[in-house]
């Protein structure tokens, strides 16, 4: 049994030996490894480039017309420091006030024996808020406004069309105002409305209103107001400005009233 195992091991070793001898003979030799880099002699150390230690704008945002301050500090060997946008050559450390009208990016260029380096700082410029508007223009004065402010109603007695004394005063003032108004509004006609209180029959009142308007027109004409520019319209009792049943209300309705014509 011992001899049998020993024999097997010998045989295996033998077989492996033979196999190994056979492989060696068939594979080509591998490529040689690359050569090591050549040994370079170290150069003399070069001069270092300058460093921009700081380049800022303060503040970074301004409104148009305000200023911002650029600050910079360049370290290292430097021969020239300049900033564009018209600032030009500057000290290696310094500051400058700028007031750009639009957003601007400033570029600082530092040059030394070791080379150049740049830094940038931006100033944002916003438009200022619009100025306060001018006070509103006075509104155009219309014919209706003028009539309302300068010309008054004139009042009448019940069932009467003659111009009573208080109405004469009012119409005299109206005449002056109307002449001025007609001068200022050279194409505008004036309607003289005749109104009545609610008593009396409707159609009779239309007659009464017509006569009140005509009486006022003639009175004004006598004071020099152009008759061509005045048109009478009777509303009788159809368009009262007051509807209560009292003398105060009735008196308000017995009137001539002046409005812009068409």
């Amino acid at each position, binding site marked *: 049994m011992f001899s049998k195992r020993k024999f097997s091991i010998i045989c295996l070793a033998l077989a492996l030996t033979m196999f190994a001898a056979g492989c060696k003979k068939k594979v080509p030799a591998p490529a040689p490894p690359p050569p090591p880099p050549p040994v370079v002699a170290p150069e003399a150390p070069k001069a270092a480039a300058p460093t921009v230690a700081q380049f800022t704008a303060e503040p970074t945002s301004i409104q148009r017309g305000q200023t911002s301050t650029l600050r910079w500090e360049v370290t290292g060997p430097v021969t020239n420091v300049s900033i564009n946008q018209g600032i030009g050559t500057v000290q290696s450390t310094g500051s400058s006030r700028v007031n750009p009208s639009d957003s601007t990016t400033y570029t600082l260029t530092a040059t030394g024996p070791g080379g150049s380096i740049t830094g940038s700082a931006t100033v944002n410029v916003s438009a200022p808020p619009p100025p306060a508007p001018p006070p509103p223009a006075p509104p155009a004065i219309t014919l209706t406004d003028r009539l309302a402010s300068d010309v008054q109603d004139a009042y009448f007695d*019940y*069932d009467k069309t003659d111009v009573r004394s208080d109405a004469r005063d009012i119409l005299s003032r109206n005449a002056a105002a109307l002449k001025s108004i007609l001068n200022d509004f050279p194409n505008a006609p004036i*309607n003289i409305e005749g109104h009545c*209180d*609610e*008593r*009396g*029959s*409707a*159609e*009779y009142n*239309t*007659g*009464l209103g*017509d*006569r009140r*308007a*005509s009486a006022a027109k003639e009175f004004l004409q006598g004071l020099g107001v152009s008759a061509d520019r005045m*048109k*009478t*319209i*009777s*509303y*009788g009792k*159809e*368009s009262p400005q007051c*509807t209560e049943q009292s003398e105060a209300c009735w008196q308000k309705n017995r009137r001539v009233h002046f409005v812009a014509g*068409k």
Partner: protein
Amino acid sequence: MKKPIWFAVASAGALFALMAQDARIIVTGGEIPVIAIPDLRGAGDAQKFMAAFNETLSADVKACGRFKMVPKTSLPTFVPQQPSDFQQPTPPPAAPPTRGRKQPPPQPVTAANGGGRWMRDWSSPPVQANYLAFGYTGPQNGVLVLQGWLYDLRKDTPANAQLIAKRYLATVDEAGARKIAHEFAADIITLFGGQSLYGTHIYFTSNRTAHKEIWMMDPDGKNQRQISKFNNISTYPTVSPDGSKIAFTSWVKGQPAIFVFSVDPVRDLRYYNQAASVNQAGSFTPDGKQIVYASSAGTGRCCRIFAANLDGTGFRPISSSSAIEVEPKVNPKTGTDIVFSSGRSGPQQVYRMSMDGADLERLTPGIGEASNASWHPDGQRIAFAWTQGYATGAFNIFTMNVATKEYVQLTHGDGKNENPSWAPDGVHIVFAKTRGGSHQIYSMLADGTQLQQLTTVGRNENPVWGR
């Protein structure tokens, strides 16, 4: 179950043919006939329109002013619907004219009354009617049929009592029910010498659209509809004699001017206004060919009375006063004289003159203010508004015999009463009443009774009654 309409028509027709329209009941001795009108019933679908029917029938007959109406609450419980429903209080005739229609058993001869089945149930207390209107309605082939009878209860038998036996046809709806009720009522009214107002119209001014516009309505206030649509001030309507046209005054173009419209269809007939600060319509002449109106033309002062053709051409002044003269109304009977309002003697009064301006006379005595004259269709009387006895502006309605100048007061305060206008029947007057802040149109009999409010919406005024 259908009503035996055709049978009823045949039997009624055989006996009475159609009423001769000339026939009139002459009421003598000044007695007012008493009429009983029980609620009629409708077969099938007709029943739902019977409330409108019965309301219309009673209202029309009552409004004519020629009857005393028996209150419906005092009528017998049994209401005959056709002649065969009547029974004789004496032993029934051998051959009752029922033709097989099932009939309740005859009443005992000893009964005190027939509960409505005897004619004398209607003529004796408590009903005490002289006349009985009865009948029924039913839909037939898509048509609403009314079979209506009027009996003279003073006659002894139904056969003798029959004054009206007539069939009326309409559409099967409420409007149809009202139509046949109006027609049945018209036949009853006509029989007693009256004139039905069914088919006439009242024109008026209403601001219910926020602007004063011309409106029209039926005499009972139904069917109110807008005529003018100017969105301005349009008012003072007047109506042509045949009812086909109206004239009115509108401010739509600035100064007040006359417009003439046809009514059906509503159309602007383009009246030509002569240049004036005021033109306001007054009335049509009886031939319908001219308009009389008030205008400031010529003098520049409102107003003289003018006449012109219907299109506004051919205008000419009639009056020559320097006072305010308005509201000219041509006598509808003669066409030869005009009543109008004038301030020529002070506060406005009612005057009369010939069509040529001659023969002027003042009709009202000069007290207070008088205006709104309106002719009775007979051309002999006027209605007008007058403040006599009241405060300035507090008008009441009066009538006056133009020849004698005798007047009668119809309204007595209760607000302001003005703008009276006679109905074509000469019996009714429509007018405007202002009470509190409310302006509404009313009708009444020409004796001041049977006041009836016709409008409720908005401010309503200036009514005029036309055909």
